[in-house]
Every structure is written in C-alpha cells, then in structure tokens.
C-alpha cells in the first residue's frame, strides 16, 4: 500500500479483551492487548503515507468462536465451556453489526472502535475509573464448612449471607453505571466510579467462596438462581421484570428507586461491617483452627474473618448513596 501510494485503510480485529484482562484468559488477553498496541504504533508509522489504521474491539458476538476454539486448562472444558457457548448464543449480538462497525470505521477514519454495549462499557471503565480497586486475596482451600467451631448455625448463616453478595454486587455495578449520567456533582461522580470498581472486585472475590462450597460438596445453585431472579428480573432494567413498564418515562424514576433500595441494602452491609470489626470471636476461631493452609504466608492467617464481609468500602459508599438520593 505504501509503494502504491494511494493511501487506504488497515483494519485490525482485537477484542473487548484488549481493554480488560479477565481471569483464566492470560494468553488471549495478551494477544489482544498486543493487537491494540501494534495497531496504535502502526497508525503513527504509516499515517504519513495517508494510510489509516482502525482497531475493532467486539464484545460477546454470536459466532462459533468458543465452540470451535481449542482450549487448554480446566476452565476451557466440560460444563464451563458449554456455559460459555450458551452465553454467546443467548447474548445473540449479530456479526452483521460488527461488519457495519468495520465499514463505518473505514469510512469515518475511526481509530479504536468498541462494538456492542459490553465492549463500550469496558472501554469506558478503563478510561473513566481512575481509582484503583483494592485487590484482596483470600485462600479458602483447607477451610472446614463448620468454620466457626462448634457453631453450625452461625457458620451457615455467614456463608449463606455470602452467597447473596456476588449477584448483589453485580447489581450495584450495573445500576450505578446507569446512574452515572444522572449525577451532576463532579466529586460525587468520581466517588461512584471508585465504588463501581471496588464492587466489581468484591463480587469476584466473593465468588471464590462459592468455589469453596462446591469443594465441600454443597449445592447452592438453587439459592443462587433465586438471587439472580431478585437482582436481574425484579430489580432489573424493567421494573419488576415487566417489560411494558420499561420506557423513557419510567427510566429515570426506576434508576432512582433502585438507588434508594441499594442505600437500604448497604445499610445492612455497613452495620454488618461495623459489627464484624467489633467482633472478637472470629479471629480466635481462625487462630485455633488455622483455617488457612500453612504453606501460605503467615500474614494471611488472620484474613478469613474480615473476608466474609465487605467492609473495606462500606463507609464511603454509604454516605454518597444517601447524598445521591437526597439530591434527586
């Protein structure tokens, strides 16, 4: 193209994974980050020859990508893989829309082009959210189900509470991304962005506790389905799961109403966090049983009790949730 001297366009296909790098996808994310970086460099290299470079970053597109890919490791096999295939089909975002995005990228000389809402979300999440979430790590490998010694009621109560957290935290993330444009106070908006990222990390972390339940032979999928129903259907974008109630007149009201619900829910996490910090019995139990494997660093030993409640972030979000409600 350079030799021909006519100019033109180069289109590289990256992925949503060029913005975010999820777990178990290190190789894929590496290659996609590389495509994005290469394209950006190439764009500068050949701009003088009047050649334009676009990078297309599609999200979850309904193609056979997951089905036909050769995967290594446990997460690429069996049920998990079938689940991933099903997600791609249910998402049903057509490849035609990606093709349209390519055409528009060429005709309008765009540079980085996310395609599909989830790709845009991760694109902006990366750019907007400047506060780095606290990336907490816990090790549940050798934990007994009666983790509070001789107290099955409390053990189950706390673990049960734990199952609710990931769907709840994902609900907060989705909701507050929708609430962001409604916030006029600049400082408040920054706080909300930090909160969104923090909740995303928490939800990931609390999912690890489910892996631990699984390892101990407990089934929790039924309960989880109920929570998903509550947070995704009843409290989803359509009020109480009724699609005909979801229109431009009700939209702002429903977002605000749900922020109000969140404020009430967060009062419980706040109170629970306060309670857990005042609590003295958990650490004793953890010391006695040495729940955490000895091969881990000794510093990690005391970390399980705090892990069960999300109180690193509860005080800040509490205040702004109520501010947000008061403002509206």
């Amino acid at each position: 193209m350079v030799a021909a001297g006519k100019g033109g366009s180069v289109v590289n296909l990256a992925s949503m994974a060029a913005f975010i790098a999820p777990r178990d996808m290190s190789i894929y994310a590496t290659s996609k980050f590389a495509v994005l970086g290469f394209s950006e460099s190439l764009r500068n290299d050949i701009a003088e020859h009047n050649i334009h470079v676009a990078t297309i970053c599609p999200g979850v597109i309904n193609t056979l990508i997951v089905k036909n890919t050769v995967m290594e490791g446990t997460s690429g096999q069996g049920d998990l893989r079938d689940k991933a295939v099903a997600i791609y089909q249910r998402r049903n975002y057509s490849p035609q829309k990606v093709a349209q995005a390519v055409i528009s990228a060429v005709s309008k000389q765009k540079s980085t082009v996310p395609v599909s809402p989830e790709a845009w979300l991760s694109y902006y999440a990366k750019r907007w959210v400047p506060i780095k979430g606290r990336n907490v790590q816990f090790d549940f490998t050798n934990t007994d189900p009666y983790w509070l010694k001789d107290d099955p009621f409390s053990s189950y109560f706390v673990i049960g509470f734990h199952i609710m957290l990931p769907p709840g935290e994902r609900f907060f993330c989705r909701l507050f991304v929708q609430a962001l444009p409604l916030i006029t106070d600049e400082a408040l908006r920054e706080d909300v962005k930090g909160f969104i990222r923090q909740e995303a990390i928490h939800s990931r972390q609390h999912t690890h506790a489910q892996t631990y339940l699984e390892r101990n032979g407990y089934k929790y999928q039924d309960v989880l389905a109920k929570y998903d129903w509550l947070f995704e259907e009843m409290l989803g974008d359509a009020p109480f799961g009724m699609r005909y109630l979801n229109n431009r007149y009700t939209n702002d009201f429903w977002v605000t109403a749900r922020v109000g619900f969140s404020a009430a829910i967060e009062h419980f996490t706040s109170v629970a966090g306060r309670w857990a910090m005042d609590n003295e019995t958990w650490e004793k139990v953890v010391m006695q049983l040495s729940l955490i494997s000895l091969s881990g660093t000794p510093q990690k030993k005391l970390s399980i009790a705090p892990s069960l409640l999300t109180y690193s972030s509860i005080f800040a979000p509490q205040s702004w949730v109520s501010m947000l409600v008061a403002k509206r």
Partner: protein
Amino acid sequence: MAVVAPLFLDFTFEAFRSLAKQDENKSMQKLGAKHLLQLLAEMEWVGNRTQNIPTFSFLVRAVLRWANPFFHPLHEGDTQQALDYLARSPAAIAAASA
C-alpha cells in the same frame, strides 16, 4: 427500608435453609425446615451465646436508627476504626504492596 429489611432477612435465611438441609446432622436439617420467625429467634439466641453472628435485636436497632429522620450514614460506625483495621489487615497490606 420497610420493603428491603424483611426481604433481606428472608433471602439471607433462604441460603441458610438450603445449606442446613444438606447437612448430615439431623438437628441442622430440622432447623432448615423452620419458619423465618423461628430462625430469627434462633439467631438471637445463638448470637447472644456465641457472639459469632449479630443478634436479631442488633439488626432491629440498626433499622430503627435508620428510621430516625436525623440519621446520616456518616454517623454510622467509625471511619477511623475502619482505617485502623485496614492498616493492620493482612489482606489489605498484601494488596497495597502488590
């Protein structure tokens, strides 16, 4: 809050029930079949005895605090306590140095 508090407790105990029913211990299975009110009474009792979970009355007091028109979350809990905790929490230290 009038809507959220009962729902919150019910959904929390829903998970408790499902776990307790899977327990090998007969007495836990029985607990799993009990009514929400009975479980709340049990929660009060166990919480007082072992201090391992908050008691039901603790939660009721928390909800009543919220109902006060002068309530503001800033007065709920102690931010300094949370910061002190973060300063000595092994997990948070590991995260900060990573």
